[in-house]
């Protein structure tokens, strides 16, 4: 009977397909709807080139950490320490550069290593001693909050040399000839056009379309239930247009921020890692059923350990980006940021019990929160209401998940 039920639930037709994939579409539509809403109520400020650039810079460190947090949550754990670790690493960078006069390169390498070690130390207790991650990372949250205070002696430390600031505030130089840029700027009636940015947007859109078509053809060949054509083309079309639009906006300001490049490359690497590699697959199995994974030869302890070590490295990277953006390290840096990161991952569709969640979802979830923050700030809505609204959005997303799941079964 259960088999027949499943068959019924998988019935053909667009409605049935939409029911089964409500979550993914819901997230995408929610993001578009929210952007549309704020674009109108802010009289177009939201999508001004300078604000788009800002939006990306403001959310870069959240997205970088969301990549690692997704893996931790898929593996069935949680990491509450990332905000503190991020602040601590920023402080460490400031002390190394400002007080000890060390070079930017050495500082970055040391900081990433330190992040990795911090993550590994937590992962060790969680993986090999089976101490709940909630406890271990809560402890680390307090420890590193305290250590950043100690390191900075309660003061802000800065400024950083230009070289270090470039991590966040720099832009990728346009490699195309200036003549082309001027020509295009005239064509579009803009003051300037960064050709590299525009080209990147077009390439990304083409790649997404190509890969979408390819995997669709492949799925059909495997006999998987493919997305109805209308949905597929609408989704690909909207995503591509949105990408081109965003990159066009960027190109009329200062071009590609360095951070966007870092973020984009990391997102692609982690999406590939989680969806296409053996280790990625094993993390999903570990989160889905740790005992079954272990009895299938998956080295569950080692994977858990690595998930936290990786989280530490990404938290360190976020710390560097954050410090470079503010051009100083403050004891308050990263305060309560772990909650934003965790919220982004859950809004992106990850499951609290582990085993479910996608990198793309986490990134979109982070953007959704980012647009909310940014839009509300432009409107001058107070931090009090902002918190309330963000909380309700998180709750709504998770309720939507649970409701969907109960409807399916």
């Amino acid at each position: 009977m259960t088999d027949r039920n499943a068959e019924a639930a998988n019935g053909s037709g667009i409605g049935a397909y939409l029911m089964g994939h409500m979550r993914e579409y819901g997230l995408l539509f929610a993001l578009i709807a929210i952007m549309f809403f704020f674009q109108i109520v802010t009289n177009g400020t939201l999508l001004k080139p300078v604000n788009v650039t800002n939006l990306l810079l403001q959310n870069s460190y959240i997205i970088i950490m969301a990549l690692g947090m997704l893996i931790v949550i898929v593996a069935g754990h949680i990491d509450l320490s990332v905000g503190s670790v991020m602040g601590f690493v920023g402080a460490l960078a400031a002390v190394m550069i400002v007080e000890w006069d060390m070079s930017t390169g050495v500082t970055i390498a040391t900081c990433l290593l330190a992040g990795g070690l911090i993550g590994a130390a937590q992962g060790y207790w969680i993986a090999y001693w089976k101490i709940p991650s909630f406890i271990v990372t809560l402890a680390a949250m307090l420890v590193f909050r305290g250590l950043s205070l100690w390191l900075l002696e309660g003061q802000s430390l800065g400024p950083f040399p230009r070289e270090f600031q470039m991590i966040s505030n720099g832009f990728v130089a346009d490699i195309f000839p200036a003549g082309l840029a001027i020509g295009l700027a005239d064509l579009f009636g803009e003051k300037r056009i960064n050709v590299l940015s525009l080209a990147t947007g077009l390439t990304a859109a083409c790649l997404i379309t190509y890969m979408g078509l390819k995997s669709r053809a492949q799925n059909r060949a495997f006999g998987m239930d493919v997305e109805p054509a209308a949905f597929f083309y609408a989704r690909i079309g909207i995503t591509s247009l949105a990408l081109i639009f965003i990159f066009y906006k960027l190109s009329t300001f200062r071009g590609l921020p360095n951070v966007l490049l870092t973020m984009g490359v990391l997102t692609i690497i982690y999406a590939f890692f989680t969806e296409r590699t053996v280790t990625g697959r094993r993390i999903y199995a570990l989160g889905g059923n740790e005992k079954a994974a272990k009895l299938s030869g998956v080295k569950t302890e080692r994977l858990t350990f690595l998930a936290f070590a990786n989280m530490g490295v990404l938290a360190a990277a976020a710390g560097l980006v954050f410090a470079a953006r503010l051009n100083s390290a403050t004891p308050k840096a990263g305060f309560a940021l772990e909650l934003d990161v965790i919220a982004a991952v859950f809004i992106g569709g990850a499951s609290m019990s582990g085993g479910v969640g996608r990198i793309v979802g986490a990134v979109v979830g982070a953007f959704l929160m980012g647009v909310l923050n940014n839009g509300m700030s432009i409107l001058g809505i107070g931090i009090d209401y902002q918190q309330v609204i963000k909380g309700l959005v998180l709750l709504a997303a998770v309720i939507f998940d649970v409701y969907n799941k109960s409807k399916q079964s």
Partner: protein
Amino acid sequence: MKTLLEMRAITKEFPGVKALDTVNLAVQEGEIHAICGENGAGKSTLMKVLSGVYPTGTYDGEIHYDGALAEFADISDSEARGIIIIHQELALVPLLSIAENLFLGNECSRSGIIDWRDTNQRTEALLRKVGLTEPPSAIVDKLGVGKQQLVEIAKALSKEVRLLILDEPTAALSESDSQALLDLMLELKQQGVTQIIISHKLNEVRRVADTVTVIRDGTTVSTMNAAKGEITEDGIVRDMVGRDMADRYPERARRAGEILMEVKGWNVWHPIHAERQMIKDVNMTVRAGEVVGIAGLMGAGRTELAMSIFGRSYGRNISGSLEMNGAPANVDSVSGAIEAGLAYVTEDRKSLGLVLDETIQRNITLANLPEVSRKTILNEARETQVAEKYRAALNIRTPSVFQKVMNLSGGNQQKVVLSKWLFAGPEVLILDEPTRGIDVGAKFEIYGIINELSAQGKGVVMISSEMPELLGMCDRIYVMNEGAFVGELTAEEASQERIMSLIVTE
């Protein structure tokens, strides 16, 4: 004798599926009524209709109970009328005491304050009724599954039960615990408690049931009466599957080849209570093409032995040697054991065998991902081919290999677990209760797969609590008791009596 319960023309539809189609069931006061049917035949749905899980109005047909039309809005409604279900998955709170569990939701209290003296006295009385000697303060978690089952029954008795429904009560019990439970059922019958038992174990049904109703594909197929001598195992099986089953255990050419696996002097201690020795000096050989059984009671240490061999997944201070094909094998980790050519198909497929929220395909490839990847990058086309191959070979009934495993029936889930281990390419497979909780048709298919494996020259170790199954399938049977092998019988020597006497005399 009067009719206590009559369900008339019950029809229950789910979107797109008719789970029950004009089912009729009449239960006489004071009888034990067995309901038999394959997994997915609609037994559980019928019981959910009866107990109010599916409230009145969500189904067609009428329920007459104790002479009146019954319309239950929820479970508490039916419980108030004395209808109590004991589910297959026990509903006890593991870390509470027996007394606390018995009166959970029904506490003996005065204005919200629990009267412990009263609670304990009443608990003792109830425990005596079900033949338990444990103190009321014993923690449920520390009891075996058999005793927990008895606590469940005691809990039902505390609620002045008139109609007790037992869903697969002996599925997780050993032979002797099962017997004790069946005896208790007969005793309750003497005291006037009407009972419905759902079971796959036909010998038990034959032993206790006064009436048997067989359900197939959501409809009542037949009703048999013990008084008229109508109940036979073959008859029930025929009605359940809709065809005659000449051989319940398919024939196989028996030929044992070279020794594949040899375990010598295997000792294992309990993972937490370090002083308890769980496995005592076990020696075992498995030859190519051989099906070797391990018989024993629940708690004899069969699963512990298998799991300790399979990458030390159980126990500590493990000593002893293991040779594969005459050479010492390193089986310190699960991945090492898999590499050495071992596979272990667990008895607990839901919590140890499957990632329920994942697809069939991903479950099948999990133990051998390197085979479907190049330089650690997965090749999904290859994965699908593999999954489709096993779906066809093992006859996994599913619309697609991208179906989530949790949507499959027990028998099909078991085939997915088997597929996973077949794809890992083992030489010796240890099957722990491979047919537990699955229906007759699927059992027959699993036996066929085991024979196929043996024909390919693989060694199979089969752990089972169903002795007829071991006798029907194995070339050789080790008898295990209290962590040690107490005997070894060839297929010709083995019989239920000999196995039991080996266990009892040790």
